[in-house]
Protein backbone atom coordinates (compact mmCIF):
# COMPACT_ATOMS: atom_id res chain seq x y z
CA UNK A 1 0.00 0.00 0.00
CA UNK A 2 1.58 3.29 -1.09
CA UNK A 3 0.12 6.32 0.60
CA UNK A 4 0.65 10.02 -0.05
CA UNK A 5 -0.29 12.77 2.40
CA UNK A 6 -0.53 16.42 1.30
CA UNK A 7 0.11 18.99 4.00
CA UNK A 8 0.66 22.72 4.35
CA UNK A 9 2.96 24.74 6.59
CA UNK A 10 0.91 27.23 8.61
CA UNK A 11 1.71 29.58 11.50
CA UNK A 12 0.49 28.37 14.88
CA UNK A 13 -1.45 31.26 16.28
CA UNK A 14 -3.22 30.98 19.60
CA UNK A 15 -4.67 34.04 21.31
CA UNK A 16 -4.46 37.15 19.19
CA UNK A 17 -3.33 37.57 15.63
CA UNK A 18 -1.21 40.35 14.19
CA UNK A 19 -0.74 41.26 10.55
CA UNK A 20 2.36 42.31 8.64
CA UNK A 21 2.60 46.06 7.83
CA UNK A 22 1.34 45.47 4.27
CA UNK A 23 -1.65 43.52 5.67
CA UNK A 24 -1.04 40.65 3.31
CA UNK A 25 0.01 38.03 5.82
CA UNK A 26 -0.03 37.07 9.47
CA UNK A 27 2.93 38.50 11.38
CA UNK A 28 4.88 35.38 12.26
CA UNK A 29 7.93 36.89 14.00
CA UNK A 30 6.80 35.52 17.33
CA UNK A 31 4.96 32.45 16.12
CA UNK A 32 5.92 28.85 15.62
CA UNK A 33 4.80 26.86 12.59
CA UNK A 34 3.02 23.58 12.20
CA UNK A 35 0.36 21.94 10.08
CA UNK A 36 -3.40 21.81 10.51
CA UNK A 37 -4.76 19.29 13.05
CA UNK A 38 -6.63 17.62 10.17
CA UNK A 39 -3.34 17.01 8.40
CA UNK A 40 -1.74 15.62 11.57
CA UNK A 41 -4.56 13.08 11.53
CA UNK A 42 -3.86 12.43 7.86
CA UNK A 43 -0.21 11.59 8.56
CA UNK A 44 -1.13 9.42 11.54
CA UNK A 45 -3.62 7.53 9.36
CA UNK A 46 -0.93 7.02 6.72
CA UNK A 47 1.56 5.73 9.28
CA UNK A 48 -1.00 3.30 10.68
CA UNK A 49 -1.91 1.96 7.24
CA UNK A 50 1.71 1.33 6.33
CA UNK A 51 2.32 -0.31 9.72
CA UNK A 52 -0.59 -2.65 9.12
CA UNK A 53 -0.27 -3.34 5.44
CA UNK A 54 3.33 -2.55 4.53
CA UNK A 55 4.31 -0.15 1.77
CA UNK A 56 5.43 3.45 1.82
CA UNK A 57 4.19 6.80 3.09
CA UNK A 58 5.24 9.88 1.14
CA UNK A 59 4.58 13.47 2.25
CA UNK A 60 4.03 16.29 -0.22
CA UNK A 61 3.88 20.01 0.38
CA UNK A 62 4.02 23.19 -1.63
CA UNK A 63 5.55 26.03 0.31
CA UNK A 64 8.70 27.93 1.24
CA UNK A 65 11.92 25.96 1.75
CA UNK A 66 11.33 26.36 5.51
CA UNK A 67 8.46 23.88 5.14
CA UNK A 68 11.19 21.24 5.34
CA UNK A 69 10.83 21.68 9.11
CA UNK A 70 7.20 20.48 9.00
CA UNK A 71 8.11 17.62 6.67
CA UNK A 72 10.92 16.47 8.98
CA UNK A 73 8.71 16.56 12.04
CA UNK A 74 6.13 14.41 10.26
CA UNK A 75 8.83 12.11 8.86
CA UNK A 76 9.76 11.58 12.50
CA UNK A 77 6.45 9.89 13.25
CA UNK A 78 7.03 7.32 10.54
CA UNK A 79 6.69 8.60 6.97
CA UNK A 80 9.13 7.17 4.43
CA UNK A 81 10.15 10.24 2.43
CA UNK A 82 8.96 13.68 1.46
CA UNK A 83 8.69 16.02 -1.49
CA UNK A 84 8.80 19.80 -1.18
CA UNK A 85 7.66 21.98 -4.08
CA UNK A 86 9.46 25.18 -3.30
CA UNK A 87 7.79 28.59 -3.67
CA UNK A 88 9.21 32.02 -3.04
CA UNK A 89 7.23 32.19 0.20
CA UNK A 90 4.10 33.75 -1.31
CA UNK A 91 0.94 31.76 -0.80
CA UNK A 92 -0.39 30.24 -4.02
CA UNK A 93 -4.04 30.22 -4.96
CA UNK A 94 -5.95 26.91 -4.90
CA UNK A 95 -5.83 26.30 -8.64
CA UNK A 96 -2.10 26.96 -8.81
CA UNK A 97 -1.43 24.83 -5.74
CA UNK A 98 -3.54 21.95 -7.03
CA UNK A 99 -1.86 22.06 -10.45
CA UNK A 100 1.60 21.96 -8.90
CA UNK A 101 0.62 19.05 -6.62
CA UNK A 102 -0.78 17.17 -9.63
CA UNK A 103 2.44 17.69 -11.59
CA UNK A 104 4.47 16.44 -8.65
CA UNK A 105 2.23 13.38 -8.17
CA UNK A 106 2.42 12.55 -11.87
CA UNK A 107 6.19 12.92 -11.72
CA UNK A 108 6.51 10.29 -8.98
CA UNK A 109 7.55 6.75 -9.83
CA UNK A 110 5.18 5.41 -7.20
CA UNK A 111 1.54 5.13 -8.17
CA UNK A 112 -0.22 5.92 -4.92
CA UNK A 113 -3.09 3.74 -3.78
CA UNK A 114 -4.42 6.37 -1.42
CA UNK A 115 -3.88 10.13 -1.23
CA UNK A 116 -4.90 11.73 2.04
CA UNK A 117 -5.59 15.44 2.54
CA UNK A 118 -6.80 17.50 5.46
CA UNK A 119 -10.47 18.46 5.27
CA UNK A 120 -9.42 22.09 4.87
CA UNK A 121 -6.23 24.04 5.34
CA UNK A 122 -5.98 25.77 8.73
CA UNK A 123 -5.07 29.19 7.41
CA UNK A 124 -6.84 29.52 4.08
CA UNK A 125 -9.69 27.00 4.26
CA UNK A 126 -10.45 26.97 0.57
CA UNK A 127 -12.21 23.56 0.74
CA UNK A 128 -11.09 22.58 -2.74
CA UNK A 129 -7.51 21.54 -3.38
CA UNK A 130 -8.28 17.83 -2.92
CA UNK A 131 -11.24 18.06 -5.27
CA UNK A 132 -9.20 19.76 -7.98
CA UNK A 133 -6.49 17.12 -7.60
CA UNK A 134 -9.11 14.36 -7.78
CA UNK A 135 -10.50 15.76 -11.02
CA UNK A 136 -7.06 16.15 -12.57
CA UNK A 137 -6.04 12.60 -11.64
CA UNK A 138 -9.48 11.16 -12.37
CA UNK A 139 -9.79 9.66 -8.89
CA UNK A 140 -12.81 9.33 -6.61
CA UNK A 141 -12.76 11.63 -3.57
CA UNK A 142 -14.45 11.24 -0.19
CA UNK A 143 -14.28 14.29 2.07
CA UNK A 144 -14.57 15.04 5.78
CA UNK A 145 -13.83 11.51 6.88
CA UNK A 146 -13.96 10.78 10.60
CA UNK A 147 -13.21 7.07 10.44
CA UNK A 148 -11.60 4.95 7.74
CA UNK A 149 -10.81 1.33 7.00
CA UNK A 150 -9.08 -0.12 3.95
CA UNK A 151 -10.17 -3.62 3.01
CA UNK A 152 -9.66 -5.56 -0.21
CA UNK A 153 -8.73 -2.48 -2.16
CA UNK A 154 -11.75 -0.47 -1.02
CA UNK A 155 -11.76 2.57 1.26
CA UNK A 156 -14.64 2.42 3.74
CA UNK A 157 -15.19 5.84 5.26
CA UNK A 158 -17.54 7.48 7.70
CA UNK A 159 -18.48 11.10 7.69
CA UNK A 160 -20.25 12.84 10.55
CA UNK A 161 -23.21 14.98 9.52
CA UNK A 162 -25.56 17.02 11.70
CA UNK A 163 -28.05 14.19 11.97
CA UNK A 164 -25.71 11.24 12.23
CA UNK A 165 -23.11 9.38 10.24
CA UNK A 166 -22.86 8.56 6.56
CA UNK A 167 -20.92 5.53 5.35
CA UNK A 168 -19.18 5.81 2.01
CA UNK A 169 -16.98 3.56 0.00
CA UNK A 170 -14.74 3.96 -3.00
CA UNK A 171 -12.35 1.59 -4.73
CA UNK A 172 -8.63 2.41 -4.59
CA UNK A 173 -6.83 4.35 -5.90
CA UNK A 174 -8.76 7.13 -4.19
CA UNK A 175 -8.47 10.46 -2.45
CA UNK A 176 -9.76 10.93 1.07
CA UNK A 177 -9.82 14.07 3.22
CA UNK A 178 -9.84 13.57 6.95
CA UNK A 179 -10.95 15.57 9.97
CA UNK A 180 -9.59 16.22 13.39
CA UNK A 181 -10.80 13.35 15.59
CA UNK A 182 -10.03 10.58 13.06
CA UNK A 183 -7.30 9.34 15.41
CA UNK A 184 -4.99 10.69 18.09
CA UNK A 185 -1.71 11.56 16.36
CA UNK A 186 1.36 10.17 18.11
CA UNK A 187 4.31 12.26 19.22
CA UNK A 188 7.62 11.61 17.49
CA UNK A 189 10.01 9.43 19.49
CA UNK A 190 13.67 10.37 19.93
CA UNK A 191 14.84 7.61 17.54
CA UNK A 192 12.10 8.75 15.16
CA UNK A 193 13.55 12.25 15.14
CA UNK A 194 17.05 10.91 14.56
CA UNK A 195 15.90 8.82 11.60
CA UNK A 196 13.92 11.72 10.18
CA UNK A 197 17.11 13.72 9.76
CA UNK A 198 18.44 11.09 7.39
CA UNK A 199 15.27 10.62 5.35
CA UNK A 200 15.04 12.09 1.87
CA UNK A 201 13.28 15.38 1.20
CA UNK A 202 13.20 15.93 -2.57
CA UNK A 203 13.14 19.60 -3.48
CA UNK A 204 11.27 20.58 -6.62
CA UNK A 205 10.51 23.82 -8.36
CA UNK A 206 7.23 24.67 -9.96
CA UNK A 207 6.23 27.29 -12.43
CA UNK A 208 4.30 30.12 -10.82
CA UNK A 209 0.86 30.76 -12.18
CA UNK A 210 -1.15 33.95 -12.12
CA UNK A 211 -3.60 33.62 -9.23
CA UNK A 212 -7.26 33.52 -10.24
CA UNK A 213 -8.35 33.84 -6.62
CA UNK A 214 -6.15 36.81 -5.89
CA UNK A 215 -5.58 37.73 -2.28
CA UNK A 216 -5.46 41.51 -1.95
CA UNK A 217 -5.25 42.08 1.79
CA UNK A 218 -6.13 40.50 5.09
CA UNK A 219 -7.91 42.16 8.00
CA UNK A 220 -8.57 41.04 11.53
CA UNK A 221 -12.21 40.18 12.03
CA UNK A 222 -13.79 42.95 14.07
CA UNK A 223 -13.92 41.63 17.60
CA UNK A 224 -15.30 44.19 19.91
CA UNK A 225 -14.78 43.38 23.56
CA UNK A 226 -18.32 42.61 24.65
CA UNK A 227 -17.44 44.02 28.06
CA UNK A 228 -18.53 41.03 30.07
CA UNK A 229 -20.52 41.78 33.16
CA UNK A 230 -18.61 40.11 35.99
CA UNK A 231 -21.27 38.57 38.21
CA UNK A 232 -18.84 37.91 41.05
CA UNK A 233 -16.43 35.37 42.40
CA UNK A 234 -16.99 31.66 42.94
CA UNK A 235 -20.20 30.04 44.08
CA UNK A 236 -21.38 33.29 45.68
CA UNK A 237 -22.07 34.65 42.22
CA UNK A 238 -24.44 31.82 41.36
CA UNK A 239 -27.69 33.60 42.38
CA UNK A 240 -26.81 36.49 40.06
CA UNK A 241 -26.27 34.00 37.23
CA UNK A 242 -29.59 32.31 37.95
CA UNK A 243 -31.26 35.73 37.57
CA UNK A 244 -29.55 36.18 34.21
CA UNK A 245 -30.68 32.73 33.06
CA UNK A 246 -34.24 33.60 34.02
CA UNK A 247 -34.04 36.91 32.17
CA UNK A 248 -32.86 35.30 28.93
CA UNK A 249 -35.46 32.57 29.28
CA UNK A 250 -33.02 29.70 29.77
CA UNK A 251 -34.92 28.70 32.90
CA UNK A 252 -38.64 28.90 32.74
Amino acid sequence: MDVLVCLKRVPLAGGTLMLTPDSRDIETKHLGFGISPHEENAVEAGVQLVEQMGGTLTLLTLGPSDAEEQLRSQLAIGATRAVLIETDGQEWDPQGTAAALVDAINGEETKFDLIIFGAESADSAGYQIHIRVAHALNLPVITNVKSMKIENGVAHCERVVPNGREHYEAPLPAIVTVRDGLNIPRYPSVPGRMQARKKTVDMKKAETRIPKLEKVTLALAPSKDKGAQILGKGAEAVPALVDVLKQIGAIA
Partner: protein
Amino acid sequence: MILVLVDHDRGEIDPLSLRALTAARKIDQSIEAVVIGSQAECLAGIVGQYGATTLHVATHAAITDYTPMASGRALKELVEKLKPAAVLAAGSPRGNEQLAHLAAFLDIPMAAECSEITLGSPHHVLRARWGGNLIESANVHAQLLVATIVSFSVEPESVSGAAAKVVAFEPALQPEDFVVKILQRDSGETSGGITLIDAKVIVSGGRGVGGPAGFGNLEELATLLGGAVGCSRVVTSSGWRPHAEQVGQTGTKVAPDLYIAAGISGAMQHIAGMKNSKTIVVINTDPEAPILRYADYAIIGDLHQVIPALTSAIRQAKG
Protein backbone atom coordinates in the same frame (compact mmCIF):
# COMPACT_ATOMS: atom_id res chain seq x y z
CA MET B 1 -29.27 36.26 -12.44
CA ILE B 2 -27.73 34.40 -9.54
CA LEU B 3 -28.17 30.67 -9.23
CA VAL B 4 -28.27 29.26 -5.70
CA LEU B 5 -27.63 25.61 -4.95
CA VAL B 6 -30.18 24.65 -2.31
CA ASP B 7 -28.98 21.68 -0.34
CA HIS B 8 -31.31 19.12 1.11
CA ASP B 9 -31.15 15.76 2.78
CA ARG B 10 -33.64 13.51 1.04
CA GLY B 11 -36.15 16.30 0.65
CA GLU B 12 -35.45 18.15 3.88
CA ILE B 13 -33.96 21.58 3.21
CA ASP B 14 -30.69 22.62 4.83
CA PRO B 15 -31.60 25.83 6.71
CA LEU B 16 -28.22 27.31 5.77
CA SER B 17 -29.46 27.34 2.17
CA LEU B 18 -32.07 29.93 3.18
CA ARG B 19 -29.23 32.19 4.26
CA ALA B 20 -27.52 31.61 0.92
CA LEU B 21 -30.76 32.58 -0.88
CA THR B 22 -30.99 35.70 1.28
CA ALA B 23 -27.36 36.59 0.58
CA ALA B 24 -27.95 36.13 -3.17
CA ARG B 25 -30.96 38.46 -3.08
CA LYS B 26 -28.82 41.18 -1.55
CA ILE B 27 -26.55 41.04 -4.59
CA ASP B 28 -29.10 40.61 -7.36
CA GLN B 29 -32.89 40.90 -7.50
CA SER B 30 -33.12 38.02 -9.89
CA ILE B 31 -32.40 34.66 -8.31
CA GLU B 32 -33.11 31.09 -9.26
CA ALA B 33 -32.51 27.96 -7.24
CA VAL B 34 -31.32 24.50 -8.10
CA VAL B 35 -31.70 21.26 -6.19
CA ILE B 36 -30.08 17.97 -7.03
CA GLY B 37 -32.10 14.80 -6.80
CA SER B 38 -35.72 13.84 -6.80
CA GLN B 39 -37.73 14.21 -3.59
CA ALA B 40 -36.85 17.88 -3.86
CA GLU B 41 -39.72 19.36 -5.91
CA CYS B 42 -41.47 19.92 -2.59
CA LEU B 43 -38.99 22.71 -1.92
CA ALA B 44 -40.54 25.00 -4.57
CA GLY B 45 -42.68 26.69 -1.92
CA ILE B 46 -39.94 27.52 0.47
CA VAL B 47 -37.38 28.67 -2.11
CA GLY B 48 -40.12 30.90 -3.55
CA GLN B 49 -40.63 32.41 -0.13
CA TYR B 50 -36.95 33.23 -0.10
CA GLY B 51 -37.10 34.97 -3.43
CA ALA B 52 -36.28 32.37 -6.08
CA THR B 53 -38.55 32.55 -9.13
CA THR B 54 -37.56 29.20 -10.58
CA LEU B 55 -36.50 25.94 -9.00
CA HIS B 56 -34.40 23.78 -11.30
CA VAL B 57 -34.57 20.16 -10.26
CA ALA B 58 -31.82 17.86 -11.51
CA THR B 59 -33.22 14.35 -11.60
CA HIS B 60 -31.47 11.25 -12.78
CA ALA B 61 -32.16 7.59 -12.05
CA ALA B 62 -28.70 7.21 -10.54
CA ILE B 63 -29.01 10.14 -8.12
CA THR B 64 -30.68 8.49 -5.17
CA ASP B 65 -28.69 10.20 -2.45
CA TYR B 66 -25.90 12.72 -1.95
CA THR B 67 -23.39 12.36 -4.80
CA PRO B 68 -21.20 15.47 -4.87
CA MET B 69 -19.43 14.80 -8.16
CA ALA B 70 -22.76 14.27 -9.90
CA SER B 71 -23.95 17.54 -8.36
CA GLY B 72 -20.92 19.29 -9.79
CA ARG B 73 -21.56 17.92 -13.26
CA ALA B 74 -25.29 18.72 -13.13
CA LEU B 75 -24.47 22.27 -12.01
CA LYS B 76 -22.00 22.66 -14.86
CA GLU B 77 -24.64 21.68 -17.37
CA LEU B 78 -27.18 24.08 -15.89
CA VAL B 79 -24.71 26.94 -15.66
CA GLU B 80 -23.77 26.51 -19.31
CA LYS B 81 -27.43 26.75 -20.24
CA LEU B 82 -28.58 29.57 -17.93
CA LYS B 83 -25.35 31.61 -17.86
CA PRO B 84 -25.87 33.14 -14.42
CA ALA B 85 -23.48 35.79 -13.11
CA ALA B 86 -22.77 33.71 -10.04
CA VAL B 87 -23.45 30.35 -8.44
CA LEU B 88 -23.74 30.45 -4.67
CA ALA B 89 -24.29 27.87 -1.95
CA ALA B 90 -24.10 27.71 1.82
CA GLY B 91 -20.62 27.45 3.27
CA SER B 92 -21.47 24.05 4.72
CA PRO B 93 -19.36 20.95 4.13
CA ARG B 94 -21.79 19.94 1.39
CA GLY B 95 -22.09 23.40 -0.14
CA ASN B 96 -18.34 23.83 -0.29
CA GLU B 97 -17.85 20.34 -1.67
CA GLN B 98 -20.44 20.49 -4.45
CA LEU B 99 -19.33 23.92 -5.64
CA ALA B 100 -15.70 22.82 -5.55
CA HIS B 101 -16.66 20.03 -7.95
CA LEU B 102 -18.38 22.59 -10.20
CA ALA B 103 -15.32 24.85 -10.11
CA ALA B 104 -13.03 21.89 -10.82
CA PHE B 105 -15.14 20.81 -13.80
CA LEU B 106 -15.05 24.35 -15.22
CA ASP B 107 -11.44 24.94 -14.12
CA ILE B 108 -12.35 28.30 -12.62
CA PRO B 109 -11.70 29.69 -9.13
CA MET B 110 -14.01 29.17 -6.17
CA ALA B 111 -14.17 31.55 -3.22
CA ALA B 112 -15.26 29.68 -0.12
CA GLU B 113 -16.87 31.19 2.98
CA CYS B 114 -17.65 34.66 1.69
CA SER B 115 -19.28 37.33 3.85
CA GLU B 116 -19.51 39.94 1.10
CA ILE B 117 -19.69 39.70 -2.67
CA THR B 118 -19.47 42.42 -5.31
CA LEU B 119 -19.94 41.27 -8.87
CA GLY B 120 -17.69 42.88 -11.45
CA SER B 121 -14.63 42.30 -13.49
CA PRO B 122 -12.91 41.00 -11.51
CA HIS B 123 -15.44 40.02 -8.89
CA HIS B 124 -14.55 41.03 -5.38
CA VAL B 125 -15.21 39.08 -2.20
CA LEU B 126 -14.52 39.21 1.49
CA ARG B 127 -13.97 35.70 2.77
CA ALA B 128 -13.35 34.12 6.15
CA ARG B 129 -10.01 32.55 6.98
CA TRP B 130 -8.71 31.03 10.19
CA GLY B 131 -12.22 30.06 11.14
CA GLY B 132 -13.45 33.62 10.65
CA ASN B 133 -10.75 35.31 12.70
CA LEU B 134 -9.27 36.83 9.56
CA ILE B 135 -11.10 38.37 6.65
CA GLU B 136 -9.47 38.14 3.25
CA SER B 137 -10.24 40.70 0.60
CA ALA B 138 -9.80 38.96 -2.74
CA ASN B 139 -10.35 39.45 -6.44
CA VAL B 140 -11.84 36.56 -8.36
CA HIS B 141 -10.76 36.43 -11.97
CA ALA B 142 -13.43 34.51 -13.84
CA GLN B 143 -16.55 35.36 -15.74
CA LEU B 144 -18.72 33.17 -13.54
CA LEU B 145 -18.33 33.68 -9.80
CA VAL B 146 -18.49 30.45 -7.80
CA ALA B 147 -18.71 31.20 -4.10
CA THR B 148 -20.10 29.91 -0.83
CA ILE B 149 -21.60 32.02 1.95
CA VAL B 150 -20.06 31.83 5.38
CA SER B 151 -22.48 30.44 7.96
CA PHE B 152 -24.20 32.99 10.18
CA SER B 153 -23.11 36.04 8.14
CA VAL B 154 -26.69 36.71 7.08
CA GLU B 155 -29.97 36.04 8.82
CA PRO B 156 -32.50 34.32 6.57
CA GLU B 157 -35.16 36.84 5.42
CA SER B 158 -38.23 35.72 3.55
CA VAL B 159 -40.16 37.78 1.04
CA SER B 160 -43.79 37.16 0.23
CA GLY B 161 -42.92 35.26 -2.90
CA ALA B 162 -45.08 32.71 -4.66
CA ALA B 163 -43.85 29.17 -5.02
CA ALA B 164 -41.02 28.93 -7.52
CA LYS B 165 -41.75 27.48 -10.94
CA VAL B 166 -40.38 23.94 -11.07
CA VAL B 167 -38.25 23.09 -14.09
CA ALA B 168 -36.92 19.55 -14.08
CA PHE B 169 -33.91 18.55 -16.13
CA GLU B 170 -31.95 15.36 -16.54
CA PRO B 171 -28.22 16.04 -16.57
CA ALA B 172 -25.91 13.87 -18.65
CA LEU B 173 -23.88 12.19 -15.93
CA GLN B 174 -20.93 9.85 -16.16
CA PRO B 175 -20.20 6.56 -14.39
CA GLU B 176 -17.29 8.17 -12.53
CA ASP B 177 -19.76 10.50 -10.80
CA PHE B 178 -21.06 7.49 -8.89
CA VAL B 179 -17.83 5.73 -7.95
CA VAL B 180 -18.14 7.12 -4.43
CA LYS B 181 -21.20 5.56 -2.87
CA ILE B 182 -23.18 6.30 0.25
CA LEU B 183 -24.00 2.90 1.69
CA GLN B 184 -25.74 3.52 4.92
CA ARG B 185 -26.64 6.13 7.50
CA ASP B 186 -26.77 6.03 11.28
CA SER B 187 -28.43 8.51 13.54
CA GLY B 188 -26.06 10.74 15.44
CA GLU B 189 -23.89 10.56 18.48
CA THR B 190 -25.89 12.72 20.82
CA SER B 191 -25.57 13.75 24.39
CA GLY B 192 -28.91 13.33 26.10
CA GLY B 193 -30.63 13.05 22.74
CA ILE B 194 -29.70 16.55 21.52
CA THR B 195 -27.02 17.07 18.89
CA LEU B 196 -24.57 19.88 19.38
CA ILE B 197 -25.65 21.72 16.28
CA ASP B 198 -29.34 21.79 17.25
CA ALA B 199 -28.86 22.49 20.96
CA LYS B 200 -30.30 25.77 22.28
CA VAL B 201 -28.00 25.51 25.29
CA ILE B 202 -24.42 24.21 25.31
CA VAL B 203 -22.41 23.65 28.46
CA SER B 204 -18.83 23.44 27.27
CA GLY B 205 -15.75 22.40 29.18
CA GLY B 206 -12.03 22.83 28.56
CA ARG B 207 -8.75 21.79 30.09
CA GLY B 208 -9.91 23.43 33.33
CA VAL B 209 -12.39 20.56 33.86
CA GLY B 210 -9.33 18.47 34.69
CA GLY B 211 -10.35 15.07 33.36
CA PRO B 212 -13.19 12.91 32.07
CA ALA B 213 -14.78 12.52 35.51
CA GLY B 214 -15.21 16.27 35.87
CA PHE B 215 -17.62 16.30 32.93
CA GLY B 216 -20.29 14.57 35.03
CA ASN B 217 -21.23 17.93 36.54
CA LEU B 218 -21.37 19.57 33.13
CA GLU B 219 -23.63 16.81 31.81
CA GLU B 220 -25.97 17.25 34.72
CA LEU B 221 -26.20 21.00 34.15
CA ALA B 222 -26.69 20.52 30.42
CA THR B 223 -29.52 18.04 30.97
CA LEU B 224 -31.18 20.38 33.44
CA LEU B 225 -31.09 23.20 30.89
CA GLY B 226 -32.26 20.93 28.08
CA GLY B 227 -28.95 21.31 26.29
CA ALA B 228 -25.85 19.41 25.20
CA VAL B 229 -22.24 19.15 26.35
CA GLY B 230 -19.49 20.71 24.26
CA CYS B 231 -15.74 20.93 24.78
CA SER B 232 -12.43 22.32 23.56
CA ARG B 233 -9.86 20.50 21.48
CA VAL B 234 -7.59 19.86 24.45
CA VAL B 235 -10.42 17.77 25.85
CA THR B 236 -10.94 15.65 22.75
CA SER B 237 -7.25 15.20 22.00
CA SER B 238 -6.77 14.03 25.60
CA GLY B 239 -9.52 11.51 24.97
CA TRP B 240 -11.74 12.88 27.78
CA ARG B 241 -14.78 13.34 25.52
CA PRO B 242 -15.84 12.11 22.07
CA HIS B 243 -14.73 14.27 19.20
CA ALA B 244 -18.32 14.91 18.16
CA GLU B 245 -18.54 17.34 21.07
CA GLN B 246 -15.61 19.53 20.01
CA VAL B 247 -16.53 23.12 19.30
CA GLY B 248 -14.33 25.26 17.10
CA GLN B 249 -12.52 25.70 13.83
CA THR B 250 -11.79 22.01 13.37
CA GLY B 251 -14.78 20.83 15.40
CA THR B 252 -18.39 21.96 15.09
CA LYS B 253 -19.46 25.58 14.65
CA VAL B 254 -22.41 26.37 16.86
CA ALA B 255 -24.64 29.34 17.67
CA PRO B 256 -26.93 28.38 20.55
CA ASP B 257 -29.03 30.80 22.61
CA LEU B 258 -26.79 30.13 25.60
CA TYR B 259 -23.16 28.98 25.62
CA ILE B 260 -21.56 28.34 28.98
CA ALA B 261 -17.75 28.05 28.67
CA ALA B 262 -16.17 26.54 31.75
CA GLY B 263 -12.41 26.17 32.03
CA ILE B 264 -11.84 27.25 28.41
CA SER B 265 -9.22 29.94 27.75
CA GLY B 266 -10.59 31.22 24.46
CA ALA B 267 -8.00 30.37 21.81
CA MET B 268 -9.09 31.88 18.50
CA GLN B 269 -9.78 28.43 17.07
CA HIS B 270 -12.29 27.79 19.83
CA ILE B 271 -13.83 31.27 19.51
CA ALA B 272 -14.28 30.56 15.78
CA GLY B 273 -16.81 27.89 16.68
CA MET B 274 -18.95 29.70 19.25
CA LYS B 275 -18.72 33.45 18.93
CA ASN B 276 -22.11 33.67 17.25
CA SER B 277 -23.87 32.30 20.33
CA LYS B 278 -26.56 34.66 21.59
CA THR B 279 -25.52 34.80 25.23
CA ILE B 280 -22.08 33.66 26.38
CA VAL B 281 -21.40 32.92 30.02
CA VAL B 282 -17.83 32.23 31.16
CA ILE B 283 -16.69 30.42 34.27
CA ASN B 284 -12.93 30.72 34.65
CA THR B 285 -10.43 31.08 37.48
CA ASP B 286 -8.39 33.54 35.42
CA PRO B 287 -9.84 37.08 35.23
CA GLU B 288 -7.52 37.72 32.27
CA ALA B 289 -8.61 34.75 30.16
CA PRO B 290 -9.05 35.88 26.51
CA ILE B 291 -12.51 34.32 26.36
CA LEU B 292 -13.82 37.06 28.63
CA ARG B 293 -13.71 39.49 25.70
CA TYR B 294 -16.42 37.45 24.02
CA ALA B 295 -18.52 36.90 27.13
CA ASP B 296 -21.73 38.64 28.14
CA TYR B 297 -21.51 37.42 31.73
CA ALA B 298 -18.74 35.85 33.75
CA ILE B 299 -18.07 34.28 37.09
CA ILE B 300 -14.45 34.31 38.18
CA GLY B 301 -13.91 31.10 40.07
CA ASP B 302 -13.37 27.37 40.15
CA LEU B 303 -15.82 25.56 37.93
CA HIS B 304 -15.77 22.58 40.28
CA GLN B 305 -17.53 24.78 42.85
CA VAL B 306 -19.56 27.04 40.58
CA ILE B 307 -21.19 24.37 38.41
CA PRO B 308 -22.57 22.15 41.18
CA ALA B 309 -23.81 25.28 43.00
CA LEU B 310 -25.45 26.48 39.80
CA THR B 311 -27.10 23.13 39.20
CA SER B 312 -28.66 23.04 42.64
CA ALA B 313 -29.74 26.70 42.44
CA ILE B 314 -31.48 26.04 39.13
CA ARG B 315 -33.19 22.98 40.59
CA GLN B 316 -34.49 25.17 43.40
CA ALA B 317 -35.56 27.94 41.07
CA LYS B 318 -37.48 25.42 38.98
CA GLY B 319 -39.13 24.23 42.20
